[in-house]
């Protein structure tokens, strides 16, 4: 039982503190930034295909398309909307943009199927993936594309900025502060993983991939933004974190929505292990240490938390360090239970959920972020 206690404690400490410390040291000793071109360069920008997979996003898409059409990009750029069996008049709404975008309508089959159809229709050298809800900063696509002069770079992920990162009290979310903290921590890891060699995936709201590296996704794939880039990593390419490519979004309104999002993400991580088992093999996965520490670590830390609690209960009567550990954990879980009660009591019943509201919110966040972005200030 003591082995379970110490093993669990070490695992939790490594995942949340040891690995970031290792990464920091690693990036300082052996970090290697990707070569990227200046955004002011005028010639030879690669052709870009922006792909949006959408189902029933008629309310959001016009604003989204306008946002993409306002991009400051000097190379050829096409926009493809892959409509996944939409029944809300998406085609009618997008007819206003008929001369500037391509609409691919596919039978309802999920996001992965829609993305496959969108990529099949794409002609750009670089694929840029986006969702209907978020908004890009004005130089986002150029910033992503600037990394592809480096032949080692297979993909680039932008930085998704949530409104709660600046001021959680303005986020209209009951868990804005917690999610903001987590998201900043997660982006710190990605930034440093990028410097060491490669991030372990991308942000679905804003990422780019070489067209030549795309392989069709399995129809039920939950995390295209991890599977597609990790396939490139397995082929020896880097995925870099590009802070100048910014997308803006609104944090989820409450804990239930965050829980659903997290369950989907973590289920997707289990799914990817089945899809690409090479990720678990050290000599096949160039970022094996990072993958095991970050992605697998997140999958097993819950079990370690359980192991720590159960072993502490068993060992507490025997020696005082275990008693202290148990008291600390009970205090922590008591605090969490209080947080759950607060959530039940004060969860925003009128949280922003409608398409129109979220469109205006994302526009507002993007508009607020743009001056700071162009001014070179990190939000």
């Amino acid at each position, binding site marked *: 039982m003591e082995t379970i206690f110490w093993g669990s404690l070490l695992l939790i400490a490594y995942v949340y503190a040891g690995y970031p410390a290792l990464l920091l040291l690693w990036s300082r000793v052996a970090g290697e930034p990707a070569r990227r071109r200046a955004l002011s360069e005028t010639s030879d920008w690669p052709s870009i295909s922006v792909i949006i997979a959408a189902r029933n996003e008629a309310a959001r898409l016009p604003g989204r398309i306008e946002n993409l059409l306002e991009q400051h990009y000097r190379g050829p750029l096409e926009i493809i909307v892959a409509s996944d069996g939409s029944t809300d008049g998406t085609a009618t709404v997008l007819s206003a943009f008929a001369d500037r975008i391509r609409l691919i309508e596919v039978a309802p089959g999920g996001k992965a199927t829609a993305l496959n159809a969108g990529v099949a229709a794409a002609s750009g050298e670089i694929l840029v993936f986006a969702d209907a809800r978020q908004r890009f900063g004005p130089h986002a696509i150029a910033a992503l594309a600037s990394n592809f002069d480096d032949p080692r770079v297979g993909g680039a992920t932008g930085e998704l900025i949530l409104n709660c990162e600046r001021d959680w*009290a303005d986020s209209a979310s009951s*868990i804005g502060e917690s999610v903001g903290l987590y998201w900043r921590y997660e982006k710190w890891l990605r930034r440093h993983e990028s410097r060491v060699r490669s991030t372990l995936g991308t942000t679905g709201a804003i990422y780019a991939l070489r067209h030549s590296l795309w392989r069709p996704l399995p129809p039920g794939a939950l995390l295209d933004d991890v599977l597609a880039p990790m396939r490139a990593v397995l082929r020896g390419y880097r995925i870099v974190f590009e802070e100048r490519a910014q997308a803006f979004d609104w944090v989820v309104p409450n804990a239930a929505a965050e829980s659903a999002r997290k*369950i989907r993400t973590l*289920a997707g991580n289990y799914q990817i292990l089945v899809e690409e088992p090479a990720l678990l093999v050290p000599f096949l996965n160039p970022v094996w240490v990072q993958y095991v520490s970050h992605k697998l670590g997140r*999958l097993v830390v819950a079990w370690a938390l359980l192991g720590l609690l159960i072993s502490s209960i068993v060992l507490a009567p025997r020696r005082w360090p275990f008693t202290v550990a148990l008291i600390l954990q009970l205090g922590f879980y008591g605090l969490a239970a209080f947080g*759950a009660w*607060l959530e039940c009591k004060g*969860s925003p019943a009128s949280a922003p959920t409608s398409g129109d509201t979220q469109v205006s919110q994302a526009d507002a966040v993007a508009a607020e972020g743009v001056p700071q972005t162009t001014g070179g200030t990190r939000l």
Partner: protein
Amino acid sequence: MAVNAGRIGPARREDEAGPMGVSRGPVRRAARVAYTFVLMNYAAVEALVRVCLGRQVWR
């Protein structure tokens, strides 16, 4: 959604209330962070159960 002194979001009151009347007291803030930490970590358990049982995890 109100615009308040250049901010986007619900109008701020001058007291310690946050969004939706959530208090910003340190204990309550810590409680919410602890709750979210537990929620996010134990999501891995639920995700595994759902994957194993073949249950839908989205939508």
